[in-house]
């Protein structure tokens, strides 16, 4: 039940956003994250955006993993 999937914001009106993943659109409330902008990725749970997905941090994890993988080889 704690599932929250990364969705891209395509529209914002006040505290409401429309966000999309794989062609599926859903409304999400932005009360916890008023600073987000169109194009940002948010984690949506039960109709509420609970966190933003930080692109730099996402890349940092992948870079770490690729380096770790190289060490093993």
């Amino acid at each position, binding site marked *: *039940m*704690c*599932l*929250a*999937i*990364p969705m*891209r914001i395509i529209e914002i009106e006040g505290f409401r956003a429309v966000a999309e*993943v*794989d062609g599926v659109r859903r409304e999400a*409330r932005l*009360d*916890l*994250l*008023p600073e987000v902008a169109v194009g940002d*990725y948010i*984690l949506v*749970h*039960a*109709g*509420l955006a*609970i*966190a*933003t*997905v*930080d*692109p730099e*941090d*996402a890349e*940092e*994890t*992948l870079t770490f*993993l*690729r380096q*770790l*993988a190289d*060490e*093993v*080889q």
Partner: protein
Amino acid sequence: MKYSEEYRDRELVHKLSRQIQELTSGPATLMEVCGTHTMAVARFGLKSLLPPQLKLVSGPGCPVCVTAQEDIDAFLALGSRPQAMLATFGDMVRVPGSTTSLERERARGVQVRVVYAPLDAVTLARENPQKEVIFFGVGFETTMPATALAVKVAAAEGLKNFSILSVHKTMPAALQVLLGSGEVKVSGLLLPGHVTTIIGPEAFSFIPQKFHISCAVTGFEPVDVLLGVYAIVCQLADNRAVVDNVYIRAVKTPANPRAQALLAEVFRPEDATWRGLGVIPGSGAGLREEFARFDARQRCAELLARVPPAKPSACRCGEVLRGTLPARDCPQFDRTCTPSQPLGPCMVSSEGACAAAYKYERE
């Protein structure tokens, strides 16, 4: 699916798996606290990628599963109110109460509506002014802000036909009790990434400090889960116990202050009964006095006082939730308890340990 698919990369999964195998020196049991982790572990077959000395057990992190039988019976009883319209997350519909379930009540004519968001229940109330909409507030810290927001919106609109039966629960208190009992011996905990987006990793720092258990906050894709295991195995190799955050793309320190403020504005801590763990002081979330008119426990106190005590059941979900009985070792599993004839919530919740084992791990 950006930010999902990259973390399902087969090559990274296998290389992480090899790294974990190399670093594991002795037997260790890790608990995946969160039901969504349990489901991810089963769905992606991650146990098969771990060395045999490393055991993964499920914990108390499925909110539907830890809901006490008497609370389920209470919500079912609310369906007898004359204009009741019961609103619930879909996961709860087939969970058996002592004598019935929402699914069976719906077949008998009780109005039951499945909602995706608590705010959808507010919409139901707005659109059905002749009905009394009661929302079953189930969930941990991840879900609580959505319920708090629904209560605030209902208050701002002055809705008189909306209330919630809150059985929301907070995770750190349950872990404190579970680990303090000494019943389950774990060396590491995979901590719930989405709960932690709300409460912050620091909310779990008592675990390494008090119990010397290595922890990793992690996400829900296969690479995330294995990265969490890797972080714990690294700590174990160095005899370290800290809370590592390996879900940095979503979990920030400190936690979102708006979420904290919203929860504090609407909820107050109260004692809560957990299936399998009993009463845990301060681990529940009641509505603050200012929102008492939206509290189904207060609005329907007379009816709820007449609900008979929960009937004893052969279900052993309690032990499964404490990590002391693997789902497949339960004598009822796949015999008298199946998803179509469930004895308890762990077999029907989409993230129950028994449901996960039934769907993905049956021999």
